[in-house]
Every structure is written in structure tokens, then in C-alpha cells.
């Protein structure tokens, strides 16, 4: 039985090691789970479940979250062939720009970068005149939870029935056939972070997905990416609930709402310490206590400078960390504070005016955050838009140009980090993606020109070493189910 298990799951060496190093308590847990399953399911299903369970060995703190034996990523890329991409100009994601550089990808990872000798057996792509960047990462997406076409039945991003809903998880709303996924892929997006909307003070868990086609959301989940929690400042929550004559209807009630939620979480954790056995499970408190234990990363929709400063004080009061402020239109007003406290700001290049809190936009916002406090800021360019995500390189280009025009010296190498390494850091996945380094996942984009030009397009997109989009191929990418026969029965959309 166990041999069969390893055979099915053998696509990853890492996985094999996990089997070896699993902790005894986990083994016991798996064994007892296994017995339950065997009684109920046929063999193949059992095996696939076991694969999931084995991956679960990487759980950081399984003691606290019994549910996390389920819902884990089932994404396992097939081993990829060796491909040598030669003669490219490379933006590494580490701040550097390399000329005439080769990258060898093999077995799902980046195997070498630099000057690499030709090997007769290795497939070669000549990328002379092309540019390579790490796969683009969009830290703010609602693809899947607000899919296209937008219908009442699939508008699943906001649980706008109560202002504090940490118990809901965006991944459980994801429609995996959203045609927006493939549009984003054509724009170079290899990883994206799907968040609940901003109707609520605390909106629920976000999920980091790889841009691969899978019927199950588990099959898209970025393996072992930490969970995130969406919070929202400002106008949206107080408008949604204030219009119903409910709390919050003011900024001050927003803040009281966050604080009360954290007080509840602290109480829950105290209770848990005293008597774990009698503790009634509470999904909301499991999420909030995950934040207070540092396992779940806060992604906080917050436009205004003064609001960000208040949110940082709330984090201080309850001893947690805000990982990133999103839609941070006024981040430039507090760029020094953000840099000092190591908080990222995810921003648009130029959106403004749709709300009062979005009135003070400046084109150089991203650059100012990046350059603040002796260039220690963490700036991210995000989309929040199925159109914008297809051109995130252009958004970064606009932000960089605005910074240069305002007198800041920002290289392409630096600016590409706004859509690669910095969002990877803020999602807790920078050990594996976000830059082109040996050993990292082979997620990369070959561009037909300077990625900071409006005229350049992604030509080839690799995810885990597999060519997922190829502009030069007739069969450029795998269509979503939605795309099949939707315009003409015998054709695919696009």
C-alpha cells in the first residue's frame, strides 16, 4: 500500500522527503484518518486522499487547526523537460538586469542562470532580442470570485451580510473556469492572490493560486502558501452597513469593529490554552487566532494615510503584523512610517476619483513608497482588475516613469520587483517564486520586447517549467471550460 502511494505521488522528490520526515503525531493522525477513509472509499480515491494527507506533513502548526488536514493544495506539476533559454536580457527580480544571459529550467525549477554551455540533448529556445522576467504575481485579484461573465449567481466575493466574517474563505467561492484566468496568463500572470471583497471590516481568508487550469481549486492552490486575511478600512464597510442603518456607519465604528474582533480572538485563545479538549470549534476565531500566532498574513484594503497609521496602532495593541496595505492611494503620505515598520503597500499606477478616499492620487505613489527611508520601502503594483492584471507590466512602467519624472532614479531591475519579488514576499512565497534564482520554481515570462513598453507582449509563459502560453503556437494555451463553443459551437473563444 505505501509503495503504491509513493508511486502515485512520486512526481516530487520533496514529497518523498516529507514522507520520511513526518512527525509521529502526524503519522498517527494520518493513520487514523486513513482507516476512516478505507471504510468508505474505493482504492483510487483513497490513494489520492493519501497524497493530500502526505503533503499535509508540511503543516506548521497542525495542533491549532484540525481542519487543515483538508483543503490543502493538490497541485503537483509533472516533471518538466530541460529547456535552455539563451541570449536573453533578464530582469532577475533581485534588482539586477543581465544581458546575453541563459537560463536552464529543468524538473520544474530553475537549474542554472548565467553562461550555460550547450548540451546536445537539451531543448533550446533562442531568446535573442527578448526579455525575461520572473512570472508576474498579482497580489490583488478577484478573478474566480467575481468571474466573467458577471452574473448574480457567480458574484461570490463579498459576504456582505455581517461586517466581520473571518470564517469565510475566498477559495470556496472560486469558479475555476473563469475565462479571465487565461487572459491573465497571456499577460504573464503566473501566480495571483484572490481576496474576498471589501464590504466587510474583516472579509475572510484570501488564497494564493497558480495560474494553471484545474477543475478543483485545490488543484490551483499554491502549495503551502500561507493563508491571508482580508481586512478593509474606510468607506466601503461603513457605506454597506451604514446604508442599512447598521454598525459600522462611521470610521470610528470601523475601528471599534476591528478591535472588538481581536479582543474576541484573544479571549478564544486564552480559553483554548486552558482547555483545548472542551473547546468548541469556531471558524472565525480559528482564522483570527491564526493571525495572532503569525501564521496568517494580513492584507488590508486601506486608502488613506491616517487610516493606515491607525491600523498599525491596532496591530500594535493586539500584537500582530500588517503585511500589506492594498489600494494604498495615500501610501506616499506615510511612506516613511511604512518603510520603518516593514509594511508593504500595494498600489495602482493611476486609478483615482471613484471615491473620496481615492481623491489624492499621485502618479509617483509607487516610486515614493519604494524610495522612502533610503530605499527601504516595499512597493507593490497590483491590479484589482481583470483588465489591469493582463497589463501589470504596463502599470509598473507607468509608476516607474512617474518616479523618474519626479526625479527618482529607478532602474527596470528595481521596478520589476513591484510585480514579482515584492508581492511574493507579501504573500509569504518568496522562497519559491518572485525572482530567477537556482532552485526556485521555473515560473518565467519571455517578452517580445522591453516589458516596460506598451508595445511589448508576453510571448511565452512558463509555470513550473511547463510552457503554459505560447503566442507563436496555434494552440497557444489551454482554454477554460467556459471558452469552449461559447461563440460558435465548433470554435473556442479567442
Amino acid at each position: 500500500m505505501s509503495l503504491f502511494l509513493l508511486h502515485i505521488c512520486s512526481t516530487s522528490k520533496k514529497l518523498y522527503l516529507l514522507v520520511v520526515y513526518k512527525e509521529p503525531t502526524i503519522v498517527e493522525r494520518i493513520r487514523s484518518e486513513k482507516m476512516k477513509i478505507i471504510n468508505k472509499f474505493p482504492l483510487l480515491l483513497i490513494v489520492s486522499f493519501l497524497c493530500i494527507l502526505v503533503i499535509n506533513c508540511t503543516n506548521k502548526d497542525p495542533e491549532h487547526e484540525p481542519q487543515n488536514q483538508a483543503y490543502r493544495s493538490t497541485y503537483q506539476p509533472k516533471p518538466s523537460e530541460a529547456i535552455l533559454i539563451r541570449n536573453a536580457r533578464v530582469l532577475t527580480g533581485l534588482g539586477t538586469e543581465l544581458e546575453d544571459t541563459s537560463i536552464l529550467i529543468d524538473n520544474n525549477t530553475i537549474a542554472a542562470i548565467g553562461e550555460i554551455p550547450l548540451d546536445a540533448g537539451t531543448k533550446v529556445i533562442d531568446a535573442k532580442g527578448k526579455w525575461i522576467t520572473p512570472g508576474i504575481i498579482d497580489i490583488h485579484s478577484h478573478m474566480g470570485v467575481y468571474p466573467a461573465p458577471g452574473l448574480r449567481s457567480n458574484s461570490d466575493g463579498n459576504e456582505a451580510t455581517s461586517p466581520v466574517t473571518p470564517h469565510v474563505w475566498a477559495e470556496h467561492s472560486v469558479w475555476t473556469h473563469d475565462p479571465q484566468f487565461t487572459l491573465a496568463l497571456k499577460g504573464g500572470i503566473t501566480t495571483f492572490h484572490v481576496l474576498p471583497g471589501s464590504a466587510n471590516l474583516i472579509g475572510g481568508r484570501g488564497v494564493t493560486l497558480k495560474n494553471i487550469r484545474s477543475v478543483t481549486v485545490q488543484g490551483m492552490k499554491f502549495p503551502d502558501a500561507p493563508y491571508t486575511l482580508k481586512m478593509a478600512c474606510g468607506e466601503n464597510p461603513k457605506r454597506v452597513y451604514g446604508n442599512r442603518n447598521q454598525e459600522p456607519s462611521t470610521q470610528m465604528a470601523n475601528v471599534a469593529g476591528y478591535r472588538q474582533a481581536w479582543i474576541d480572538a484573544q479571549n478564544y485563545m486564552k480559553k483554548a490554552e486552558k482547555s483545548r479538549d472542551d473547546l468548541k470549534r469556531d471558524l472565525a476565531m480559528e482564522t483570527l487566532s491564526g493571525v495572532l500566532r503569525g501564521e496568517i498574513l494580513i492584507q488590508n484594503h486601506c486608502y488613506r494615510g491616517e487610516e493606515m497609521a491607525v491600523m498599525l496602532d491596532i496591530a500594535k495593541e493586539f500584537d500582530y503584523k500588517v503585511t500589506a496595505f492594498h489600494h494604498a492611494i495615500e501610501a506616499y503620505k506615510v511612506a516613511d512610517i511604512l518603510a520603518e515598520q516593514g509594511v508593504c503597500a500595494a498600489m495602482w499606477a493611476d486609478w483615482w476619483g471613484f471615491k473620496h478616499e481615492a481623491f489624492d492620487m499621485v502618479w509617483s505613489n509607487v516610486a515614493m513608497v519604494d524610495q522612502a527611508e533610503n530605499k527601504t520601502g516595499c512597493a507593490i503594483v497590483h491590479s484589482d482588475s481583470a483588465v489591469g492584471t493582463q497589463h501589470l507590466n504596463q502599470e509598473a512602467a507607468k509608476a516607474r516613469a512617474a518616479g523618474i519624472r519626479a526625479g527618482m532614479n529607478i532602474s527596470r531591475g528595481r521596478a520589476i520587483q513591484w510585480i514579482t519579488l515584492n508581492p511574493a514576499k507579501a504573500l509569504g512565497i518568496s522562497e519559491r517564486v518572485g525572482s530567477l534564482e537556482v532552485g526556485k520554481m521555473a515560473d518565467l515570462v519571455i517578452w517580445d520586447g522591453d516589458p516596460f513598453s506598451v508595445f511589448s507582449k508576453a510571448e511565452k509563459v512558463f509555470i513550473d517549467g511547463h510552457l503554459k502560453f505560447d503566442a507563436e503556437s496555434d494552440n497557444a494555451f489551454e482554454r477554460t471550460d467556459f471558452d469552449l463553443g461559447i461563440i460558435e459551437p465548433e470554435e473556442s473563444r479567442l
Partner: protein
Amino acid sequence: MKNFIITTIISLFSLVSGANAADLEKVLIQNATVITASDSQVLKNTDVLIEDGFIVAIGGNLVANDAIQIDASNQIITPGLIAPHSQIGLMEIQLERETRDDSTKYFSAGFSIVNAFNPSSTLIPYNRSGGITSAIVIPSAAKANYSGLASVFKMDGELDSDVILKDIAMAISFGAGSDSRASQILLLEDAFNKALRFNDSREQYKQLADFDYDDHTIRDLEAILRVLNKEIPLIVRSNRAKDLLRMISIAKQYGVKIIFHGAKEAWRIADILAEEDIPVILDPMDNIPGSFDSIAARMDNAYLLNKAGVKILITSQDTHNSYLSRQGAGNAVAHGLPENEAIKALTANIAEVFGLSDLGTIDVGKTADLVIWDGNPLEVSSFATTVFIDGKQISLVSRSTRLRDRYLRKLGLE
């Protein structure tokens, strides 16, 4: 203000001579690459002479010693960009109803927004710093399927400047909504017929029992008559290919000149649109199949339409960032549209379709609405360095640049 202009000229250009601070009416721009958006296309190393608000000469080595001299070597001049479909001047903050004047609950076809335009709107200096010098301002919503009447405004921001063309097109929408699209067509036919009957017997008509004051006041019927008399075109916001075809057939039946707006599936009927000479206002980047009306949306809509011979007008869908039509045009070029056609879609085509005969191209005799760019105007990293409206150099300072400069200082990033 004038001090500012002089300072800007000195800081931006190496050569300033013959400047008279009190008189900026005559300007000679030298050594530029001029994208004319007209038949002469692109002129290298060319001078443009502006006098009394008009372009009076274009050529090599022009001499005008009494003019302000601007050296535009390595820079590019285009006609001022025209926003073909926006609510600039009617809206300050989208979600704040009291800052908006772009909709009505009292009128339908005849809703004119001329008296609402605010020349002091923050959107004006901001968008002209992005190269927009005039805008076709179109209300968002009126009664029934109507949006109302479009008017044209300059982006000079002067309190005493007025509408330059009033009520020049009527806008409606057609497609998925709360009521069947079949019913929407019936209502439109009924409205056309009603307007015709009204025209036949104006005085008696007011007495008729079937006069429907609900959706059509006399003002509205008068506006519809202007459409039926081909005095003004009808802008139809619609996306589905079959809906576009149906509107074409109604337009033919009633002799109405139409312009499509949105038109995400227009590429499917590109040949027919070309044959019928129907212009299309579109955002080339809007390739989302956002509803079952736009399933066939795609990135090369602009390219395919232009290739078939359709006149395209490129817009941004975001009024606050109307100038981003430039990015849309750049993306259209990335997907096949020739660069010169993209520039025309931001300028000349818009002027032509809306009858702005003195705007849209750089030709002798045209109004001097011009933009000097520090790089390819379609490139997202290029900026307008100088903007002229009616021959006057306009400030590129906006509330946004003021905020930027304040916080650059505070952060020590100057």
C-alpha cells in the same frame, strides 16, 4: 500664471529667445517630429508657427523673430487629444452623488448637460497634463435607455470659456437590461414614430390623448427629430454583434446616422460597419467577456475594425483618467493597429466624426491645440511636456502634482 508659464518654458527648453512676458500669442516650435494625424502623416525636423490661436505655418527652418521660440528637438508634437466619450466637467467623485451632474430623472432624449459643465473641475488640469485638450462630454444616464445629448468643451479651465459645440449627438444604450432587448427596440421605434407625428402637427399633438409625457417631453421629442433629420448622430452603446446589426437596420429604416460605442463584438461585423460607414468608439483594452452581450470580446477589436476600413475612435472608460485612451491606443498598436491610425483614433477621427472641423490634425489654418511629448505619445512612459490650447501654453500643474511635490519634500526625495 504668466510667471509660471515663463518659468516652465525656461526650465523645459534650452532655447528661449525673443520672449515677451506680456505677449505669448506667437510661438515658434522648432525641430520637432510632427505627427500631423492628417494626410501628411509624420514630418521630421519640422517647425510649427502658432499665431493668434491658429497654426499659421508648418515647415523647415521657419523664421519668426518676434515669436517665443521653443526648441523641440527629440520631441514629438501631436494634435491635442480629444476624449471622445467622457463625463469630464460633470463629475468630481464618482460615488458622491452631489458631485455629479451626469444624469437626470426628468428628461430622456433631450437631456442637455451644457449648463452643468464645471471648468474648475480637478479632472481638467489633470487630464490636460495627460494631453487631453478637448472632450466630447456625454451624460451617463437619463430616462429609459437614453443618456442624453453630447456637447464639446475645451480643457482650458477658464471660467469665461463656453461650450464650443452644443448638443451635437444623442446617446442611448441597447442590450441586456431589466427588460427584453426586443422591448427596447419597440420603445425606440415608438419614440421615433411619436416624434414624427409630433413634427407633423405640433400644436394638435399636444392635445392628443396618447402623448406620453413619462419618457418624452417636448424637449425630448425635438431632440429625437434632430436625430431623424440627420442633424445629429445617434451614439448607440451596445456590444453584442447581433444587436449592432439590428440597430443598423433600424437606423437605415429611419434614416438615422449612428455611431457605436463599446461595441466589444464589433469585429464580428467589421465589413458591414465599414460598408455602412459607421464609426466605432471603443476601449481597445476592454477584452473581458463581462456579460453574455460581450462573449466575443478580444484585444484586437480595434485592429480588426481598422483593417476592414471602419473609422475607430479610441476612448478610456474611466472619466477621471480620460487621457489613458493613449494607453489603449498603444495596446491596440501592440495588437496590430498601425501607429498612425492609433494617433488618428485619438485625434483626427474624433474631430471628423463629431464635426470639429478646426481640430484633430496639425495643418495650417487649424486651431493650435497641440501637445509636445518627450517620447512616443503612445508609450506609457512618455509625458506631455507642453500643451497648447487655442495657441496658449497651458499649465501642467494639477492638484496631483502639488500633492506629489509637497510629499517629495517631506520624504526628502526631492
